[in-house]
């Protein structure tokens, strides 16, 4: 078990390092002079040179790389080209917006998905089963911006149930940090983007839950549980569901990874000031320090989530505490 966790952790660190390195070189081989826009042409040569130096542009590549890695660790991620703010300050504010949105969306998907999956397995072959399968697959094939825009049109523009976008009503300043989560205005704005994301990813946990549920209910320990005279609910949830959840759990970590990559679109559609939106802005305004850091932060988030999933999986399924890991 320890051995397993340790190995996983090492892999994770390695992965992060590798992603960082790849990123460094992607951003170095891109065309053009990245600083042309920050360094005002009005400045004389001397002060331009001074600025280039400040950006570390005068140094040879391997030193730049060393500095870059050092910066990553010491959280000195450079300064934004467009806003002159330290990248870290920008991100620490955007980070939570994304995490909250993703958290809400993903928990909704997973809970609803598994619940539905259970019921579908329970009533297999029934109308619900079939219709749910088809609609989930179709939802999965509908890009989030299509569903998102549909939601906006119907629920926001037509019925005026939800705001058109953003995180707060203009002027209603939000509390920062966790307190934000308990702010009614914020939650009101959260609904649409959250369900848009949730619906898009619903199919995966739902179908997997359904399948593994069907697999489990055939097994002997379920029969024994029934023979023990446990209530059907207990049998279904405590025995069947508990086991059926394992594969769902494995997938969910990967799923969240995908979602974190994809939330760019949702944030754009609902003008949600998260990392995704920042990513787009930075990329199209060529604000490289920001784009780079945002990308990296997303990547780190993904791999760390996977790590956590792997570790908690050990606790969920006693069978894989044996070294060698799952599968």
């Amino acid at each position, binding site marked *: 078990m320890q051995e397993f966790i340790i190995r996983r952790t090492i892999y994770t660190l390695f992965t992060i390092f590798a992603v960082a390195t790849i990123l460094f070189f992607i951003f170095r081989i891109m065309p053009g002079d990245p600083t042309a826009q920050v360094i005002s042409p009005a400045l004389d040569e001397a002060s331009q040179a001074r600025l280039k130096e400040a950006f570390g542009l005068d140094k040879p590549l391997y030193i730049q790389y060393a500095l870059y890695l050092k910066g990553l660790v010491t959280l000195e991620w450079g300064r934004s080209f467009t806003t002159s703010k330290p990248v870290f300050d920008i991100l620490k504010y955007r980070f939570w917006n994304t995490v909250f949105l993703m958290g809400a969306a993903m928990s909704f998907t997973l809970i609803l998905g598994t619940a539905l999956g259970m019921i579908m397995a329970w009533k297999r072959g029934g109308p619900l089963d079939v219709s749910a399968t088809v609609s989930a697959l179709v939802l999965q094939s509908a890009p989030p911006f299509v569903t998102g825009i549909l939601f906006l049109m119907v629920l926001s523009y037509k019925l005026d149930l939800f705001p058109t976008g953003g995180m707060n009503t203009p002027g209603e300043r939000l509390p920062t940090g966790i307190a934000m989560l308990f702010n009614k205005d914020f939650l009101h704005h959260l609904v649409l983007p959250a369900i848009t994301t949730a619906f898009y990813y619903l199919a995966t946990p739902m179908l997997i839950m359904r399948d593994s549920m069907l697999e489990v209910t055939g097994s*002997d*320990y379920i029969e*024994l*549980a029934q*023979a023990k005279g*446990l209530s059907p609910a*207990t049998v279904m949830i405590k025995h069947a569901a508990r086991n059926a959840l394992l594969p769902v759990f494995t997938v969910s970590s990967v799923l969240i990874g995908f979602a974190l990559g994809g939330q760019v679109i949702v944030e754009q559609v609902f003008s949600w000031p998260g990392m995704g939106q920042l990513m787009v802005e930075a990329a199209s305004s060529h604000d490289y320090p920001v784009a780079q850091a945002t990308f990296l932060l997303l990547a780190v988030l993904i791999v760390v989530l996977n790590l956590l999933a792997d570790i908690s999986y050990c606790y969920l*399924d*006693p*069978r894989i505490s044996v070294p060698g890991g799952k599968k």
Partner: protein
Amino acid sequence: MDNILNIKNLKTHYSSEEGIVKAVDGVSFCVGENQVFGLAGESGCGKSTLIRTIMRLVPKSAKVTADRLQFKEYNLLTVSDQFFREKILWQGISLVPQSAMNALNPVYRVGDQCTEAILAHTDFSKAEAEKTVVKMFDAVGLQAGLMKAYPHEFSGGMRQRAMLAMSLVLTPELVVMDEPTTGLDVLVQERILRNLKEIREKTKTSAAILLITHDISVIAGMSDRIGIMYAGKLMETADAMDLFNDPYHPYTLGLKNAFPSIKALDRELISIPGSPPNLTQTIPGCLFYDRCPFSIDICRDKRPEEIEVQPNHFVQCHRTEHVKEFRKLAGEKKTWQFSK
């Protein structure tokens, strides 16, 4: 002595693509208090369905009928699912399932899976429940420490014992054992069975046992009464001694041949040719007709009634009067080498 389980003409019919499957088709027998009733028959003869029917584990689609299906004072045909679940299952009738391997839920500690049963039916505290389980574990020869272990950490034998312990935690009147020893090597089988006896002394459980197996030699030693099941029917039912000393039904004779008997280990084993009939087709005559070396035309045309050849010894056969000569012939290999 009065019976705790009393079954008359029990039928369980499934509907499948091929038609109605008469898995259990008119079975009658009784299990007395503290009695060990062995139910023997080839796999697929419907014995598992029989016990599942008794424990209401058959799917709702299955059609169950009986003239009588009584456990103690309860008429199992009429009691509500809820009552059955809460009052009868495990407290009255408990189960040692076929494959202890897969019958334990892999994600829960074995101990918890035992206490679970107790907590479901009694108002014991967790501690009390655990105490009881410890007692049972000890009875089956498992250290109390193993309660904290997970199934995958158990060996086959240990699981089997755990299952035994689990089945006894609520001191039920009837323990149904479905092939308790399949998938275990002979030595373990041996130990478990011996164990079973000891346990019954140790725990002073006056539990009757309904022991199901495809291997009569297993039940020979320990059953008080034995039923030979074939194609959903009880061909012969008698006290263990009678059945082994003077069996009537050709099928019983065949089975006896097919397994080493404790008495004559040197005798070579003869197996019954052919295979049991498809339970969906309706056969007018004796179900064993195809495989019976002694059958005559009537056997093909008329289904034999159940007759009491000796007190408490029931047989379903037309030709019981010739049984003496059958017993002789049955010992010889060529008798069974025929074709219809």
